[in-house]
């Protein structure tokens, strides 16, 4: 049986997302290598990494949001069987950074990868009950087939990179 993490990584590939593993210590260097500027984002829950130092705008205005090419956010869960990221919409505007720029970079603790949808829903029920009620289950890039064939980057990001942090 492959581990949930291995399943998650292969599922991500199937849904056209890139994935890199890193550690808290190397997180800043890893991000430096994957993000393009101008970038917007929200503060990450790792004191080893400061997005501000990476020239990521953590207080975007409508104009800077609109012109950003890369958005960096956390994901609260990864769902192994689907390659799905659970993105929480927060008062700090995480939803906007994951949605407007062409490239979304999601940072996820490897420990937060759950095996399947059923387990994900157990967590989601708890989160919603605790007042954290807004989440997007995001799987791969934004897509449409409405214009005659499959095209990535309809209204949302064209490219998704997942940075898995192993502690």
């Amino acid at each position, binding site marked *: 049986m492959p581990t949930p993490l291995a399943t998650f990584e292969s599922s991500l590939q199937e849904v056209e997302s890139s994935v890199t593993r890193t550690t808290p210590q190397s997180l800043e260097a890893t991000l430096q290598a994957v993000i393009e500027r101008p970038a917007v984002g929200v503060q990450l829950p790792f004191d080893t990494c400061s997005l501000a130092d990476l020239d990521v705008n953590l207080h975007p205005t*409508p*104009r800077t949001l609109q012109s950003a090419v890369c958005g960096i956010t956390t994901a609260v869960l990864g769902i192994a069987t689907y390659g799905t990221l659970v993105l929480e919409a927060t008062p700090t505007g995480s939803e906007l950074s994951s949605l407007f720029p062409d490239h979304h970079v999601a940072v996820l603790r490897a420990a937060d990868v759950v095996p399947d949808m059923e387990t994900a*829903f157990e967590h989601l029920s708890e989160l919603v009950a605790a007042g954290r*009620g807004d989440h997007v289950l995001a799987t*791969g890039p934004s*897509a449409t087939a*409405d214009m005659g064939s499959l095209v990535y980057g309809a209204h949302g990001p064209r490219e998704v990179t997942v940075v898995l942090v192993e502690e």
Partner: protein
Amino acid sequence: MMDGSRAETAAQIERLLETEGETVAENLTDLNQGRYESVARLDEYDAYKSRARSIKADAIERLPELIETVRTAVEDNGGAVYLADDADDANRYIREVVQDENADTVVKSKSMTTEEIECNEALSAAGVSVWETDLGEFVLQVADESPSHIVVPAIHKSREAIAELFNEAFEPDEPLETPAELTAFARDHLGAKIRSADVGITGANFIAADTGTIALVTSEGNARKTVAVPDTQITVAGVEKLLPTLSDLQPFVELIGRSGTGQDITSYVSLFTPPVATPPVNFDGPETPIADDDRERSFHLVLIDNGRLDVRDDPQLRETLYCIRCSACLNSCANFQHVGGHAFGGETYSGGIATGWETTVNGIGSAASFNDLCTGCSRCVNQCPVEIDIPWINTVVRDRINRSGDADAFSFLVDPLVPDTQPDGLDPQKRFFGSFEWIATLASKTAPVSNWLPKLPGARSILERTLGIDRRRELPQFKRETLRSWFHARDGPALDTVRRTAVLYPDCYTNTVHVDRGKAAVRVLEALGVAVEMPAIRSSGRAPLSQGMIDTARQHANAVAADCIPLIEDGRDVVVIEPGELAMFRSEYAKLLDEERAESIATASYDLFEYIYGLLENGGDSTALAGPAEPVAYHAHCQQRTLGLESYTTAVLERLGFDVIESDVECCGMAGSFGYKSEYYDLSIDVGTALAEQFRTPATTDRTVVASGTSCTDQLDDLLERTPRHPIELLDPHTQNS
């Protein structure tokens, strides 16, 4: 010459086949194939379907309570709930919210429910500009057309047609051509609308009543933007979208994308508990940090009744409310695949289940305009993630339509032929086909004269005008000597050992038209040690049921039960050649008879090849059957496939050394009487041609063609140069001896 309304229907179908048919067929075949593949990857598929169904059943049962639960939850979160009686009521409320916000621009994500209430028209009339941000809906808004599919609304539009439309409407500097260019253009165009929007309107795929969480299943990201950017969100949803709890969403999240577009999951499943936490974005003040925007968000949940609470009290149609609008029943429907939702749909909804939806929200008149396009082939039944018996809903509505008609000028033609108990208003065409047992008996008694009569000059034209029987269709050739008279006139063989005793059910097609397959079946069964009996038994009631004549079908079922149950209790098996008849015994009788009798007939009846397979597995002597084996191309019957029985034919043939290639179209397009009807002849041929082409490939073109059903055989006979046979004829020991 057809009568007026038939000619109109025929002309509409012909026009759509020419203009939209090809694009629709190509796109839908892909979605249908995608669904088969995606659900096969889900281990717990069947278990999830049953769970989804029981959650919906419980939710609809508790609907009034759930409305109050969600009201409390949304109000506690700071939003408002409005329960709208009907479309006008909903539109009035939405308009007031929009006007209170002084909104000029409203952006929308895709929502069939707002199509149902014609929300865009209501807002436009109030001077508000409304933009559809889903790319498919946007195409339709520019083209001023209505959706032809409930999930992929512009499925009838090819890339070329969209490019032409955009180039004409927007005159871009460089003409748009590729899907990527068209997408980028629409994204930019709609991006500007979203940035300037004052209000965002969404639908909802599901609503968790306990938390007030809205689930939106999308792929483009437009629904997320519609919610995130404006500070006011209105969500419009039918009351049936309520589920008791957030965790109830899980099986639906696993099923809906697979069942619809054939994706394991769509790109985005938003679970929002509005007013959402994301700060609104004011693009008119582009230099103020978004986090400093201190506007309060507001949220309105508009729940729509519009007939739903009435249908909840209608035991026959109530399951319509279980529907999650995934589109599996559209995509798996052969007729829908060929003609699309502009013919196979009512004012708002399309496909098989649209009969239930249109009857609920727009009235039976809207359902009547397309209800006949459901042939009852049942291919959708196993595809529905909430296990709705969609053909039954179509049959019930057809029955009600039959009862609402006016007596027809040509009724007198059918009256003396058919001693049924149907209402006066019933269309004579339906009554004629619904009475096939009587017609067949009469025609057989008077054969060959009955076969010559239609060949008299002008006869076909009269049949077409009065009964709508298309003159291009070959009519069945009735045999004077029926299967039963042959059976009882001959000296049956003395069997060394009697392994089983079986009643071979003499359905009226086998008995009066396809007599040879019946004779072959008798000889094959006897060769395998079965003592065959063939008492007179009423026809199953399939013919009247398919015309929506439920009372008549129930009379047949009662008669069959009276004939068969004593035989079954005496230890006889009932072996059935015609799959449509077997499907009556195995499934439909559950709706027509009490549980005990239905169960008794269902358990004792067998598909002919299922039975032979069982005999061979249990030591039956296959050398007693005909050889040598030849390569065959096999088309199973749609209802046989729904029951999962088609594999027995292939298994038996392969066991006997035949090399078998199976067709994989959903239906032959003949579907009983459907292909005879002048208004549907062209569609029937279009559907049948897809099957015939599978039997004209280099791999199949020289093969013997076999088909399990009468309809399929007749259709293939009309379309192929080779004469199709029933697979049982390949096994007939008589051929071996002669």
